[in-house]
Structure formats: structure tokens, C-alpha cells
């Protein structure tokens, strides 16, 4: 299977009026297959958002190349196809809304790519349904909550039927309820075959993906299936990242001499191990 996203020795730095600007990304090699659910974690300044912008041609590599479904992002004739392949949902829902009603806002992208009005209706209906905004079609976006606005932004992206959707810290400005719905939407889009890339600060959210990439100071430090990553998750602290709570507990109990297995694959497993040990006593 051909990877849907390929980074081949990608280096990137911003062009500024300085003699030798620092590298924001250093020698990134990365393949993402169609249908994967990948999280990218890293602190501010780690290069993770730059990475996302390179993946749909908003930025172009200084060195190396980025390929999307076999098309190179630096190719002017392919760039529009690339942007339709890779959709992006950003951090602040306020900045992504353009029209005066939910329906019009979703239609905006369709109009841009010249979809005939008759076909629009069906597509908009599906997009509205996918994000659970039924009944809000005629509402004015500014009356929506933060979470609903972010769902609208997602609808505006998925209506264009991209294969890949990148969520760039799209949950960080939302309250717990809003965050939960967005995470559920990501999971359901992934189940329906979309490639999902979720850029986040939150360890808890990152571990929902199947694969996790850790960025630190422009370098890819770790690229691992989350199931396997569990046992070495304490390492995340090396890069100033959060460790999921259950892993922290597992580590502490083991240090206290609890006979816990030396690897666990998820929270459920830890909880059942605790049950087992407590019921034996």
C-alpha cells in the first residue's frame, strides 16, 4: 500500500531577515498509511504545527520533499488536489467560520470547488449529520457554543471529502463536553476510513490514537504504536510531556514492589490487575 503521506528527509526553516535562521524541522522521515489514526505530541516550539502545515502544502520544505498520495507538495499543478486530499481543522473555531448560517458556512467550500447547487444539498446534509449538528442548519454560527463551532469547522472540512484530516490542537480551546464530542467525531471518522492526524498537548488524548509521534526541538524523537508505547511511557517526561495518569500509578506501584506485569497495554488492564491483587489479600 502506498503511504498517503510521505516526508522524505524534510528540513524546514522560516525565511526571515536573519543570516542563519534556526531549523524548525530537522530531517523528518515519516510515512503515514491510509486509514491510520496518528497523534503528534510535543511542546510549543517542537515543530508539530509546522509539520502539519507542510502536510497540506501550506508550507513547503526547505530541503527534502513531502508527498501526498504520490503528489509532491511543491508541484503547483497538484497543490489544489493535495489540499482537497488533506483537510485541516485548526485550534480556534472562531477563525474558521465565514458565513452567516451553519448551512451556508458548510456550502462555502463546495461553492469554491464548483459543486452544482443540486448536489450540494445531499453533501451538506451528510456533513451536518456526521458532526451531529442536525437542527442547527439555519442557526447563525455566532450563537453556537465553542464545541458546536468546532463541529461546524469540521463539517466544512469533511464536506469536501478529504482522505486525511489533520486536527491541529482542535480540542485545546474547548470545555470538557466540547472536547469529548470532537474526540468522538475523530474516532468515528477514522472508523469510516479517514486518515486522522491529531496534534495535541494532552497525553490522554494522544493515547487514543493507534500510533504516536513525539516531536521535540524539531526532531521526531519517537514513533511507536500506542499499545507498545505504554510500557515506556514514563520516557515522555524526558521531553517535558505529560504521562497518562494510569501509567504514572502503575510505575509508582511497581516501585513500591507491587507484583504488576512489566507491561500493560491500557487503562483497563491496569485496573483489572489492581482488582486481582486486591482481591487476593
Amino acid at each position: 500500500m502506498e503511504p498517503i503521506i510521505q516526508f522524505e528527509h524534510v528540513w524546514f526553516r522560516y525565511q526571515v531577515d536573519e543570516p542563519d535562521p534556526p531549523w524548525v524541522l530537522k530531517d523528518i522521515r515519516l510515512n503515514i498509511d491510509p486509514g491510520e489514526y496518528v497523534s503528534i505530541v510535543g511542546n510549543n516550539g517542537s515543530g508539530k504545527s509546522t509539520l502539519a502545515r507542510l502536510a497540506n502544502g501550506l508550507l513547503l520544505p526547505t530541503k527534502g520533499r513531502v508527498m501526498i498520495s504520490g503528489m509532491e507538495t511543491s508541484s503547483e499543478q497538484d497543490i489544489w488536489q493535495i489540499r482537497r486530499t488533506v483537510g485541516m481543522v485548526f485550534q480556534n473555531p472562531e477563525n474558521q467560520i465565514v458565513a452567516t448560517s451553519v448551512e451556508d458556512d458548510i456550502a462555502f467550500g463546495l461553492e469554491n470547488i464548483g459543486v452544482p447547487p443540486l448536489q450540494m444539498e445531499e453533501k451538506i446534509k451528510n456533513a451536518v449529520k456526521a458532526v451531529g449538528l442536525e437542527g442547527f442548519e439555519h442557526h447563525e454560527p455566532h450563537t453556537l457554543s465553542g464545541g458546536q463551532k468546532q463541529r461546524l469547522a469540521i463539517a466544512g472540512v469533511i464536506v469536501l471529502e478529504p482522505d486525511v484530516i489533520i486536527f491541529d490542537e482542535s480540542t485545546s480551546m474547548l470545555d470538557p463536553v466540547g472536547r469529548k464530542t470532537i474526540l468522538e467525531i475523530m474516532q468515528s471518522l477514522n472508523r469510516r476510513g479517514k486518515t486522522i492526524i491529531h496534534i495535541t498537548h494532552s497525553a490522554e488524548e494522544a493515547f487514543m490514537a493507534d500510533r504516536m509521534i513525539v516531536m521535540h526541538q524539531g526532531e521526531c524523537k519517537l514513533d511507536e504504536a500506542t499499545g507498545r508505547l505504554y510500557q515506556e511511557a514514563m520516557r515522555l517526561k524526558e521531553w517535558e510531556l505529560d504521562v497518562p495518569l494510569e501509567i504514572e500509578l502503575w510505575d509508582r506501584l511497581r516501585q513500591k514492589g507491587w507484583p504488576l506485569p512489566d507491561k500493560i497495554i491500557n487503562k483497563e488492564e491496569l485496573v483489572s490487575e489492581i482488582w486481582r491483587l486486591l482481591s487476593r489479600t
Partner: protein
Amino acid sequence: MEIVVKDLSVVYMPDTPYEKQALSHIDLRIESGCFAAIAGATGSGKSTLIQCMAGLIRPASGQVQVGDKIFHAGSKSGAALRKHVGIVFQYPEHQLFEETIAKDIAFGLKNRGITEPKLDREVHRMMDLVGLPGELSDRSPFHLSGGQMRRVAIAGILALKPDVLIMDEPTAGLDRQGKQELFRLLKDLHEKQGLTVILVTHDMNDVAKYADQVFVLSGGKLALSGTPAEVFEQYQIWQELSLELPQVSQLVAKINEQLDVPLPYSIFTLEELEQSLAKRFVQREAPT
């Protein structure tokens, strides 16, 4: 400085079809020098409440008392409260506007009639207080990191020497490091400067870590109040309000699903959970 809220109600757009009761009959007391948290879902009335405390929104009935200053429906203005209460709103970095960091911090001071050389001295004192290197003073605030921009905004508020500092979602959008640094600053201000700090948040993990007193709003009413242990213990009520408990409490709930004698819900830190589990676990295999 103590804040006492008595039977406070606020109605938006009264006598119109859009009339909305934002707060109904709130009674609460925030002790002087305390680190309080106001929690609740979006739309629960948190922002309205803090704006009343700062004299920015007028009560429809009831009153807010800050120190000896009282603000009620008939007050001429909330200006008396504003002298004592500083609010740092959500994403305060969006409200920076001056060309340099020093000018931005000086803005409020100038409005209060402070002039050079005192102005410059104060600005540098504030930069030092919030941990911004003095040499940044002539730089544009817009070239700073998110966490640093937020410090500039906080410095501008602290310069006005409030007795009470209210922070609305101060760590939203910051990474782990930025978050930790900001909380360290808040704790410092609270402990060393004796500021009464009020944190508005929906992140219960932060509440669990930092607050002495917690007030939980729901639908414009005070649903719960007390110490974090007292408040988080009310597991049933949290579920009814569909609010998110701290991660540790959620883990406790999960572990309790199959324990005959459940762990107490007053546990909300990892240390307590670890100790409580250790007590139950009689070790059969000697640790190696």
C-alpha cells in the same frame, strides 16, 4: 481581601424576548488570602459571577462585597470594586496592543496618572515579578511565546496592585511547561504577595492541585462548595451535573466498580490514591 456574595442574581436583557437569568440567588464567601476556584460547564454563569465581583456587571438583586466596598443594583457604578479586583480574561494575549512590552504594561499605570521615572521603575518591577527578563522591555509583545504574552498581560493587571486577582481559564491553550510555569507564578503571587487568587476553570485537575476552596456553578446556581475533598466527594452530584471530575477521581471510580469496599471519593491526588491502595494491599511476595 474577603469577598462576600449575598443573594446575587443577574438577568441579561430583562423585559425582552431574550431575557436570560444568568445567576440566581448566589451566596458565597471567599476568604481573604485564599486560592479559590470557580468551576462549572460553559454557560453555567462563571464569567458573569466574576464580572460582578470585579464591578463590571451590575447585580439585578442581591450584592457583592469586596473588603468594605459594596456593589448592588442601586450602586452608581462598580468603580469602587475595580480598584481592588483585577481580572485577567481568557486569552489575555489577544488584548495586547502596544508596540513594546514596557508600554503595554505601563498602559493602566499611565491611566492612573503615574509618570516617569516611577512608571519605568514599576514596569520593570512587574516584569521581574512575573518572570520576564528586563531586556525584553523594548521588544514587541507579539514576538513572544504564548506563555510569555500571557505574562505581559498579567503584569499589566498586577501593576494596578489589586488585592484580588481573578484569572479566567489562565492556562487554556498552553503546553505542559507553560502551564506549570504559570501556576508556579500564581502560587508565588498568592503566597508571597498575599493576593487572594480566584481561578475560573473547567479543568478539575488544576482545581485538585491548587485550590483551597471550590465553588461549582450549574445553570446559574451554586451547586457545590467546600474544600476540594469535600466537593469531589460528592460523586453522585458530579454525575448528575455531567461535569468532569479530576482524572484521579475518575480512576478511583473505575477501580471501585469491582471492589466490595470502595475507595473513598475524597481521594483526588495520585499520592493519596497510591497510599490508599498500599494500605489495602498486604504484600505476599517480598519486594526484590
